[in-house]
C-alpha cells in the first residue's frame, strides 16, 4: 500500500506526467479488454467497405482490406503492451543479471562485460535488423531482439550501480554475518536497485515501441498479419493522402503512448536517490 502511495506521490504537482499515467492506464485497459471492446474482428475483411472514412459503424474508418481500424487499434494496444513488457522483462532480467554478476565478481565481470562490449559495438537498430533477418518474423522474436538490444545498456548501468553499492557498509555487514553470495546479491543489493530499475524499465518500454514500429516499417518486425500500430502504419502508408485516417490514428497512438511513458519515466527519475540519477540516461 505504501509503495503505491509513494509511487503516486511522484505525480503530485506534475500535470503532464499525470496525464501520461492516465493515458497508459487507458492503453492497458484497451489491451486487456480488446476482445470485449472491439466492435469487429480485427482480421476479418470485407472488400465492399474498404477504405471507408471514419464514421458509423467504423469509427476509425477501414483499411484497404476493409478491416475495422478501431478494432485493429484496440488489438494493437495489446501488442504495444506485450512488446513493451516483454522487452523490459528480457532486457532487465538478462542485462540486469549480467550487470550485477559482473560487478559482484570481478573475474566473471571480465568475461561478461566483454560480451556486452561486443554487442554494444553494434548500433541498436542495426543489431535488431540483423537478428530479425536471421530469426523468423514473430511476436516472440521481436520481443527478444528488442530486449537483447536494451539488455546491453541495462547491463552497463547495473554494473555501475552494483559497484557503488558493493562497497557500502550494509553489504560488509551482511558478509560478516555469514550471508552467501546469492543472498547478498538478491536480498541485500537488489532491493536497493528496484527504483532505478523501474526508471530504466519505463524508458525501455517507451523506446521499444519506437523500435518495434521501425522494424515493422522495414518489414522485419512483427508478422504482417498481426494487428499492431506499426504494421497498421507500414501496411497502409501509401494511403497517406487517399485515406489519411489510416496514418493519423495509429501514428497518434504511438506518439501518445511513447510520450506518456517518457513523462512517467522522467518523473520517476526526478524522485530517484541522487546517487543513481546520473547513471540512467533516459530520453
Amino acid at each position: 500500500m505504501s509503495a503505491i502511495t509513494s509511487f503516486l506521490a511522484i505525480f503530485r504537482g506534475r500535470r503532464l506526467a499525470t496525464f501520461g499515467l492516465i493515458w497508459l492506464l487507458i492503453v492497458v485497459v484497451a489491451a486487456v479488454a480488446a476482445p470485449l471492446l472491439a466492435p469487429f474482428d480485427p482480421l476479418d475483411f470485407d472488400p465492399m467497405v474498404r477504405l471507408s472514412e471514419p464514421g458509423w459503424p467504423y469509427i476509425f474508418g477501414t483499411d484497404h482490406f476493409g478491416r475495422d481500424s478501431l478494432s485493429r487499434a484496440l488489438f494493437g494496444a495489446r501488442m504495444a503492451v506485450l512488446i513493451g513488457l516483454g522487452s523490459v522483462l528480457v532486457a532487465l532480467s538478462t542485462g540486469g543479471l549480467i550487470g550485477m554478476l559482473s560487478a559482484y565478481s570481478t573475474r566473471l565481470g571480465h568475461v561478461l562485460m566483454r560480451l556486452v562490449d561486443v554487442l554494444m559495438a553494434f548500433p541498436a537498430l542495426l543489431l535488431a535488423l540483423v537478428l530479425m533477418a536471421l530469426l523468423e518474423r514473430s511476436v516472440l522474436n521481436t520481443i527478444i531482439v528488442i530486449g537483447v538490444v536494451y539488455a546491453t545498456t541495462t547491463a552497463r548501468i547495473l554494473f555501475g550501480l552494483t559497484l557503488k553499492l558493493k562497497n557500502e557498509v550494509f553489504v560488509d555487514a551482511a558478509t560478516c554475518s555469514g550471508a552467501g553470495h546469492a543472498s547478498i546479491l538478491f536480498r541485500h543489493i537488489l532491493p536497493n536497485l528496484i527504483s532505478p530499475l523501474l526508471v530504466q524499465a519505463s524508458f525501455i518500454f517507451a523506446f521499444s515501441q519506437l523500435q518495434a514500429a521501425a522494424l515493422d516499417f522495414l518489414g522485419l518486425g512483427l508478422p504482417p498479419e498481426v494487428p499492431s500500430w506499426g504494421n497498421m502504419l507500414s501496411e497502409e502508408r501509401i494511403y497517406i493522402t487517399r485515406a489519411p485516417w489510416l496514418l493519423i490514428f495509429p501514428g497518434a497512438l504511438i506518439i501518445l503512448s511513447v510520450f506518456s511513458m517518457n513523462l512517467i519515466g522522467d518523473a520517476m527519475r526526478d524522485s530517484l536517490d541522487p546517487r543513481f540519477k546520473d547513471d540512467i540516461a533516459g530520453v
Partner: protein
Amino acid sequence: MFVYTFNRLLALIPTLLAASILVFLFIHLIPGDPASILLGDTATPEEIAELTRAMGLDKPLWTQYFIWLSNVVQGDLGTSVFFREPVLAVIASGAETSILLACMTMMWIIVLGIPIGILAATRHGTWADQLASGGAMLFASVPTFWLGLYLILIFAVGLGWFPSSGFPSITDEGGVFNLRYLMLPSLTLAAPNAALIIRLVRASMLDVAREDHVRTARAKGLHPARVAIKHIFRNALIAVAAAFGFTFAALVSEAVVTETVFSLPGIGRLVVQSILRRDYPVIQGVILIIVIFYMLINLLVDLAYARLDPRVSLS
C-alpha cells in the same frame, strides 16, 4: 592520456574480432542465397550450385571466414555479389550520403538543441522551460518514418520548398546545391536527437549551477555573468561532444529508416538492401566499417569529455 588512448585502441581489436565472427555467423545463417537471387526464376539447381561454387560459398563457414579475414587484413573487403564491384567502392559511394547527412543533422542538433537547452535552464521552472522540455520529449516520441512521410507531404509536395527524395552526389551537376536534398531527411533525423541534446544541456547546466566550484567562484567575488558564460560555454561544448556521439550512432541506426523513407543512397539503406539480397560481402564489410567507426567515435567522445569536464578522469 596518450597511454589511455593507445590502450583503448588496443582493446578494440578483440572486440572487433568477436564482432566480425558474430556478424559472419549471423549473416550466413539467414536462409536464402545470393546465387539463386542473381540467377532469377528460371535457373536450375545445377546452375545455382555452379555459381555458388564459383563464388566460394560452398566452402565450410570457418574456411570462408578465414579467407575473408585474411583478405580484410590486407585491405581487401571482397567484391559485392550484387553490384560486381569492390565492396569498398560500394561503401564509399554510400558514405558520401551518410556523412553529409550526419553532418547536416548534427548542425540542426547543435543549432536547435543548445540554445533551446540553455534557454530552458536559464528560465528554469517557467512556461518557456516547460514548453522546451515537453516539446523536446514529444519530438523524441515520434516514429521517424511517420515524421518523414509528413514532412515530404507538406514541404515537398505541398509547398515545393525542398526535393522529396533521392540525393545526387555533390560532385555531379548541381554541386553543393544538391545538399538541399538532405534538408528534410536531416530535419527528420535531428528531431529526436535534438530533443536529447536540449535535455542534456538543460540538465547539466542546472547541475553545474548547484555545484561547489561555481559557488566558490562566486564567493571569490568573480562576476556572476562571467561565471555563467564560462560554464555555459564549457557545457555547450560537452553537449556538442555528446551530439557528435549520438548523431554518428544515429547515422546507421535511425538513418536506416530515414534513408528508406527518403530513398537516400546511404549506408543504412545499403545494409537493409544487402540483407534482402543476401549480398554477404557487402553486409560484412559495411558492418565491420560501421563497428570500427562507432567504436572510434565512442572513444573520441570519451576523450572529449575528459578534456572538457573536470569531473571525469581517465584512469
